[in-house]
């Protein structure tokens, strides 16, 4: 590591300044005025100064040129000429590329000459095989892909952070003997006290001076032990704090990718001669750079396509009664353990007619097949069926972007959804599971083990007397907020076969909110809350579904994070499902049969169900579903509606008509949201109907928990 690296700090500063310049230029572009000019001038000036100090002439010169353009506009509201704006953007890119070169590790090969920044920093390597949508016939020549002003969020800091965390971990490990020492001191103190007590009770007067000495010894040991313990505690707390903050730094705000996307929108709009506004939301949501980087790379294509193929030319928009300026919105949201990226535009939507034609021409739809629904067409685009064909790319033009998003989804175990309304716009959504999740946890102790409950699932805590705890344990219920919540002593499910040390027994109940309702877990002790970063359990460590993840404590020791949903499943499993009719406590749910013709949906539903503790079997068509249902016992059938051959409605009807199967609960999952479809599902005999568009896995699981048949 470069302790003597003269550029170390310049790199950090320059990166930050370049980020500010990149965002500032785009601000200025959208909202001219002396204020953004002034801010840009200050930043460029700082960069110039810093670059001169470390002899980075290239950067300093460009920062100077940048200033030269801006100075005449320091006062006055007149917008910069288009040519000046372009020059600013060009300089911005060159500076960014120069800074990126500094950040590159000592070059394995000669770096690109600075005259070609676009080639050096160019496209993120999301899909090297796929060409940029170059074959798309557009009026203006496609500009070279915008260089990324950020060389991937957080990339440079990750290794530094790892080193920092390692160092903290080491220091903590070195604290271990000190902590043990605290225990030893405390024991010595108690022994000395016991000794002096014995002497006090002793008969002989000869012990007098000895007794006094023993008392003094006990008192001194007591106060030394307290001081020692306090000091150690303080250091440990301090280190813990540092560690939590450092762990938090691993997570990068989503806003760090917005500038890149905004710039891509701006460049595409410029090239196409469109006016497009970029709106972003969710800048503060933090997640691992390893998620943000690929998502940013994929959405770079998506936002560009939204401008090039979605947003209509101004006259067309005005005729359609839309504002002259198009809007591309990019949002990031966190939904529990999932992160959602969404790009929507208010353009013309996908050209479904052309897609349909091409799909038919290419023989992807049988001659006898009914014309595919819009939804299926979009699925074809999404799942690569027709996306890579240049022919379709010419027509639909969104193939490459979809490929990139789909690849990222596959790589990050996520899911892509596409919606399009002709004339109103299109939306592309990527949902990925978060691996590192920062949260506040409530630490609890049960049966000698410590675990963490995510605080946002905690509804309340109750102190229990020994008698109350015994009643709750034997009845499996506890009164909370006027109703009887299922109760489960945590020690029972955390028990790992270890001899449990002499523990006081259940002393408190933690009431948790989960989709199935409220439940309570019995714990020995509450140990306060702390900020933590939860990470997935390592490979080779299969765990009970009550464990969702693991965090690393200050002393380097892993601590288990409980999954409220898994606990709910466990509680219900022990109590029997639903309204308290106690089924056999060992009743296991029978496997769930998932019927869907889309592989992605099957896999998504399987992962949702399996992580909730269900066994899952899959069928790719109504026919296969029916065959499987007849061949084995299932606790529930979860089926899509729109499938070739036997559709979901028919499948449910056939199941209901079969005396062997008629008792199996059926849940329909569909993108059809209409009341008539729901009604049709009901009359076919479906027990529940879940709409994919508002697909809420918790809702789905709640239905399944309620309905599933147990052995």
């Amino acid at each position, binding site marked *: 590591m470069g302790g003597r690296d003269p550029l170390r700090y310049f790199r950090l500063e320059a990166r930050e300044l370049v980020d500010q310049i990149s965002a500032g230029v785009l601000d200025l572009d959208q909202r001219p005025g002396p204020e953004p000019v002034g801010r840009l001038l200050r930043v460029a000036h700082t960069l110039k100064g810093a670059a001169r100090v470390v002899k980075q002439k290239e950067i300093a010169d460009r920062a100077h040129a940048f200033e030269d353009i801006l100075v005449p506009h320091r006062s006055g509201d007149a917008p910069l000429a288009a040519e000046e704006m372009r020059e600013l953007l060009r300089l911005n890119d060159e500076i960014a590329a120069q800074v990126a070169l500094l950040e590159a590790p000592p070059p394995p090969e000669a770096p690109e000459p600075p005259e070609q920044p676009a080639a050096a920093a160019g496209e993120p390597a999301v899909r090297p095989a796929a060409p940029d949508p170059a074959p798309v016939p557009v009026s203006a020549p496609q500009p070279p892909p915008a260089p990324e002003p950020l060389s991937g969020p957080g990339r440079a800091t990750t290794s530094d952070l790892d080193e920092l965390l390692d160092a903290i971990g080491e220091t903590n490990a070195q604290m271990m003997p000190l902590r043990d020492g605290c225990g030893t001191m405390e024991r010595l103190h108690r022994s000395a006290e016991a000794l002096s007590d014995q002497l006090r009770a002793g008969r002989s007067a000869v012990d007098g001076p000895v007794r006094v000495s023993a008392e003094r010894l006990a008192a001194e040991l007591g106060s030394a032990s307290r001081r020692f313990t306090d000091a150690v505690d303080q250091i440990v707390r301090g280190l813990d704090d540092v560690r939590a903050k450092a762990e938090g730094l691993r997570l990068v705000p989503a806003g760090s990718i917005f500038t890149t996307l905004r710039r891509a929108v701006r460049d595409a709009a410029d090239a196409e001669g469109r006016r497009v506004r970029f709106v972003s939301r969710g800048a503060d949501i933090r997640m691992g750079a390893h998620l943000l980087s690929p998502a940013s790379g994929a959405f770079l294509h998506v936002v560009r396509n939204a401008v090039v193929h979605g947003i209509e030319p101004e006259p067309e928009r005005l005729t359609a009664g839309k504002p002259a300026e198009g809007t591309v919105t990019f949002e990031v949201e966190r939904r529990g353990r999932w992160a959602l990226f969404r790009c929507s535009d208010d353009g013309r939507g996908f050209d479904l007619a052309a897609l349909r034609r091409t799909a038919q021409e290419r023989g992807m739809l049988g001659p006898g097949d009914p014309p595919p629904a819009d939804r299926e067409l979009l699925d074809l685009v999404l799942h690569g069926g027709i996306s890579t064909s240049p022919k379709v790319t010419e027509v639909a033009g969104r193939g490459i972007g979809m490929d990139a998003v789909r690849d990222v989804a596959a790589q990050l175990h996520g899911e892509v959804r596409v919606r399009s309304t002709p004339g109103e716009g299109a939306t592309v959504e990527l949902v990925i599971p978060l691996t590192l999740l920062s949260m506040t946890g409530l630490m609890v102790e049960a049966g000698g083990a410590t675990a963490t409950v995510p605080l946002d699932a905690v509804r309340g805590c109750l102190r229990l007397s020994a008698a109350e705890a015994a009643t709750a344990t034997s009845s499996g219920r506890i009164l909370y907020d006027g109703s009887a919540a299922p109760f489960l002593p945590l020690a029972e499910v955390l028990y790992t076969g270890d001899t449990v040390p002499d523990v006081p027994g259940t002393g408190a109940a933690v009431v948790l909110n989960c989709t199935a309702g409220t439940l309570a877990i019995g714990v020995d002790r509450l140990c306060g809350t702390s900020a933590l970063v939860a990470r997935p359990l390592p490979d080779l460590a299969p765990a009970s579904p009550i464990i969702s993840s693991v965090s*690393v404590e200050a002393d380097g020791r892993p601590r288990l994070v409980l999954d409220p949903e898994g606990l709910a499943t466990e509680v219900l499993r022990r109590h029997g499902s639903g309204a308290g009719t106690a089924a056999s406590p060992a009743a296991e749910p029978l496997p769930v049969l998932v019927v869907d013709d889309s592989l992605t949906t099957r896999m998504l539903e399987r992962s949702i169900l399996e992580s909730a503790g269900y066994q899952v079997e899959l069928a790719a068509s109504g026919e296969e579903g029916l065959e499987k249902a007849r061949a084995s016992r299932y606790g529930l059938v979860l089926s899509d509606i729109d499938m070739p051959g036997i559709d979901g409605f028919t499948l449910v009807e056939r199941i209901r008509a079969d005396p062997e199967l008629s008792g199996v609960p059926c849940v329909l999952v569909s993108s059809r949201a209409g009341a008539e479809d729901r009604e049709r599902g009901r009359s076919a005999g479906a027990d529940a109907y879940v709409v994919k568009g508002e697909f809420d896995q918790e809702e789905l699981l709640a239905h399944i928990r309620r309905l599933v048949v147990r052995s």
Partner: protein
Amino acid sequence: MTGRTVAERVNRLRTDFDRSFAEPARTVGADSVELLAIGVGGRPYALRLSQASGVHPDRAVTALPTPVPALLGVAGFAGAVVPVYDLAALLGHPIPERPRWLVLTTGAPPLALAFHRLDHHLRVPVVDVVEGSIGDAGPGTYLQGLVRLPDGNRPIVDVPATRALVHQLAGHQPDPKETS
């Protein structure tokens, strides 16, 4: 109180020291093997040092509720969370006593094996290692060869085979590249 004088001891140390120069230089290479003599579930075994990337005593292991009985839990190593398996259980003779020692194995994903006693670290001539699989089924599959030592013969634990067993128990797809 053996009656040995300081002078005698100094003398002995001196001759030992001198003699060490007279001996041919030992090389750690093809003609010797570095081993850890360990006690697993009350039985003696040996472990090839080349198949371990670290040995740690008294590392805290967080117990994990799991369907796999041999999985003791997880432990932290420099910020990483590593699963810990009970070697005695993997070899088919678990004992209630908690193992004290952890050996980090080579290969991926990270895996630590826990054993009860570290007897010594030794370098033995290759000729003292009798190659060959001990038993072709059952726990013997995870042993590869024997080493002859003054305190008796010890079977050598085959770490890659043990790792393969763990992968199987954990339902993990074995990595084809994983051979060492």
